C-alpha cells in the first residue's frame, strides 16, 4: 500500500526590484498613508543605522548591528502590528523596534552598554533585544500562551534570522506553537548570511519557510525587500492568528547589505559582485519608485523627510550622550525584587570602593 501526503510553500511578491507592480496589488498599495509610514520608517531606520555606526566608530557606543538593505522587513512588521501586540525581537530589527515604542535613545543606550536602554516603561510588554540566537523563540510561545490563556485579542510577533532557524530552539518553538495553536507569527529575516556562514551551509532545505511543515503549520516565503509584500502578508498572518487561526512562519528573503556588525569585515568572506547584485534589490528605492510612479511622493517630500528624520535622530543622539552614567550599584538593585541578605555585603563593598575612588 502506498499513500502520498503533499505539502507546499508559496512565494509572494507584489513589487519588482524596479518598483513596478506585478500581478494584483493589495488594497494597502493604494493607501498613501500606509505607504508613507512604511517609507518613513525605512528612511529613518537607515539614517539611524548610519548615525549609530558613526557613533561606534568614534567610541560612543559599542558593537552595533545595522539593518541596511533589510528595512522593508522592520517597516512591514512594525506597521502590521497593533499597539497591543507584542514584539519579541532578535537584535537586527531596528526598524520594527522604532515603529513600536523604542526610541533611538533607548537603542543607543543598549548598544552603548547600558541596561537602561530596555527599561523604558512605554515599551509595555515588548521584549528586550535578544542576543543569544533563537532563545527568544520559545519565550514567544510562552507569551503567546499567556495571551491566549487570558483570551486577549493580541498577537505575538517573533523575529529571527536565517541562521536562527538552525537552532533547536526555533524548531521547538514552532512545534509548540502548532501543537497549542498559539497566536504567534514568526518572521525570518533571511538576509542570506549568518555572520560569514551563507544560507547554503545552514541547511539543505530549499526554503526556510518549509521548516514550518515540520511543525504542521503554514510557512510562506515573501520578497523581504518588497515592503508591500511584507506589510500585507505579515498583517494577514497576524490577523489570522488574532482570529484564532494559529501560528504562521514567514520567510522574508532579503540581503544583508552591511557588515554583520561593526565588529565584522564582510569583505573577508563575500564577493563584491554578490553585494553589488543585491544592491539592485534595495527596498528603499523600490518603494520610492513605486510611490513616485503613482504621484504619491515628490522630491520635496523626500528632502523634508530626510531633514526631519535627521533632526529627530540628532535630538535623540543628544539625549543619549547627555544621559547620566548608570550607577554602579544598579547591578545589584535590579537583580532581585528584593536584594537577598548575602548580597548587601557585596553591594556595600562596591559602594565603599567607589567612594574611595572618588
Amino acid at each position: 500500500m502506498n499513500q502520498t501526503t503533499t505539502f507546499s510553500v508559496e512565494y509572494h511578491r507584489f513589487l519588482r526590484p524596479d518598483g513596478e507592480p506585478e500581478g494584483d496589488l493589495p488594497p494597502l498599495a493604494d493607501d498613501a498613508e500606509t505607504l508613507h509610514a512604511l517609507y518613513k520608517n525605512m528612511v529613518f531606520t537607515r539614517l539611524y543605522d548610519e548615525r549609530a555606526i558613526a557613533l561606534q566608530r568614534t567610541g560612543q557606543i559599542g558593537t552595533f548591528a545595522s539593518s541596511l538593505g533589510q528595512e522593508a522587513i522592520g517597516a512591514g512588521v512594525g506597521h502590521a502590528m497593533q499597539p497591543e501586540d507584542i514584539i519579541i525581537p532578535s537584535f537586527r530589527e531596528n526598524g520594527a523596534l522604532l515603529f513600536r515604542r523604542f526610541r533611538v535613545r533607548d537603542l543607543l543606550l543598549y548598544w552603548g552598554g547600558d541596561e537602561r536602554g530596555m527599561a523604558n516603561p512605554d515599551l509595555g510588554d515588548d521584549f528586550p533585544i535578544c542576543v543569544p540566537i533563537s532563545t527568544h523563540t520559545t519565550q514567544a510561545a510562552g507569551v503567546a500562551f499567556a495571551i491566549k490563556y487570558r483570551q486577549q485579542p493580541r498577537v505575538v510577533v517573533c523575529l529571527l534570522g536565517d541562521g536562527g532557524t538552525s537552532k533547536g530552539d526555533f524548531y521547538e518553538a514552532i512545534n509548540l506553537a502548532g501543537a497549542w495553536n498559539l497566536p504567534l507569527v514568526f518572521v525570518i529575516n533571511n538576509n542570506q548570511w549568518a555572520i560569514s556562514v551563507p544560507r547554503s551551509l545552514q541547511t539543505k532545505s530549499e526554503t526556510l519557510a518549509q521548516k514550518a511543515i515540520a511543525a504542521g503549520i503554514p510557512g510562506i516565503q515573501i520578497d523581504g525587500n518588497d515592503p508591500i509584500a511584507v506589510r500585507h502578508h505579515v498583517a494577514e498572518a497576524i490577523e489570522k492568528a488574532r482570529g484564532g487561526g494559529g501560528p504562521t512562519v514567514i520567510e522574508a528573503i532579503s540581503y544583508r547589505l552591511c557588515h554583520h556588525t561593526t565588529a565584522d569585515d564582510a569583505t573577508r568572506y563575500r564577493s563584491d559582485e554578490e553585494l553589488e547584485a543585491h544592491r539592485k534589490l534595495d527596498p528603499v528605492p523600490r518603494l520610492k519608485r513605486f510611490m513616485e510612479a503613482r504621484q504619491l511622493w515628490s522630491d520635496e517630500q523626500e528632502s523634508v523627510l530626510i531633514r526631519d528624520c535627521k533632526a529627530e535622530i540628532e535630538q535623540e543622539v543628544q539625549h543619549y550622550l547627555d544621559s547620566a552614567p548608570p550607577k554602579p550599584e544598579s547591578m545589584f538593585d535590579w537583580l532581585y525584587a528584593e536584594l537577598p541578605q548575602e548580597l548587601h555585603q557585596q553591594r556595600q563593598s562596591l559602594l565603599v570602593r567607589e567612594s574611595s575612588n572618588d
Partner: protein
Amino acid sequence: MTDITLVEAVNLALMHEMEHDPEMVVLGQDIGVNGGVFRATVGLLEKFGNERVLDTPLAENMIAGTAVGMAVQGLHPVAEIQFMGFIYPAIDQMVSHASRMRNRTRGRLSCPMVLRAPYGGGIHAPEHHSESTEAMFAHIPGIRVVIPSSPTRAYGLLLAAIRDPDPVVFLEPKRVYRLMKQAVEDNGEALPLDTCFVLRPGSDITLVSWGAMLHETQQAAEQLAGEGIDAEVIDLATIKPIDMQTILESVGRTGRCVIVQEAARTCSVSAEIAARLAEEGLMSLFAPIRRVTGFDTVMPMFRLEGHYMPGTERIVQAVRQTMEFA
C-alpha cells in the same frame, strides 16, 4: 489533617496555589492525565483543566523557555522537569534569560517562574535519573535554588517559591518523596526563603546539609548523641542565596563544622559554605572544616550508588575526626 509524604506535600502546595492564584499554570511532561511520573501533579488536571495543566511536547529547553515567556507576561508558571538528569537543556534559559529579565529591563519585566525537578540518588533508578547538580544552578546570579527535606518544608517552601517574584529552581529529593510522613496543614502559609532551619540544636559541632542527606545527617546526630557528642543540625533549605548568618552563628558556638551533601565535591555548595567559613569564621574554628560529599565521579549506575552516596557512617566518622582534632 492527615500525615502526608513529601511528594503529597508538593501536590498539596500546587493544589492550594492553583486554587488561589488564577495566574498560576503548571506545565511539563506527563503532568496531566498521568499526574506526573512521581504523582506530584496528580488531580490537577481534573480540577483545573487542560487550560492550566499543560502536558508539553518532549523538550526541556522549550519547557523552560515557554515558562520564561509565560512569567514575563505575568503568569506564574510552575514547570516540571521530569528528572534533574534532563534539566541541562533548560540551563540556557535560566542563565541567559530567567535570571536576567528584571535586571536587563531595570524592572520593567520580571520572571516569576518556578522550575521544579526531582533530584538525587538512592532509588535504584536507571542511568541519568539520580543527578545532584544543584551547584550549577547555585552559581547563577539572579535566581534562587530551594531544596525541601521534609513534607512540611516542601509545602511551605514551594508556596514561597511560587509566590516569589523571581525565578526559583525547586529541587525535590526524590528519595524522600515517600520516605516519611508528617502532618501538614493546608493553611496556605509559606515558609521563608533565604533562610536555614535548625532541625536539632547542639553545642559540640555544626552539621549542615540539605535534601535527602539530612536524613543520614540526623541519624548520624542521633548516633553521636549516644557517644556524648551534641551535634547541631542545620537544613540549608535555600541553597542560593545562602543564609550564612545562621551557619556562622552556629559555628561560632560549636567551633566545628561538617558539611554533608550528595553532590560531587568540586565547586559544589559545600565548597561555598566551607569557603565562607574560612573567610568569615576562621577564628572560631577549633578544627578543620570537613565535607562529606559524593565523589568527583559520574554518579554510578545503581549497583554502585550506595558506595557513592555518603551514608550515616561516613558522617559519623567525619564528625569523630573533627571532634578528635586537638
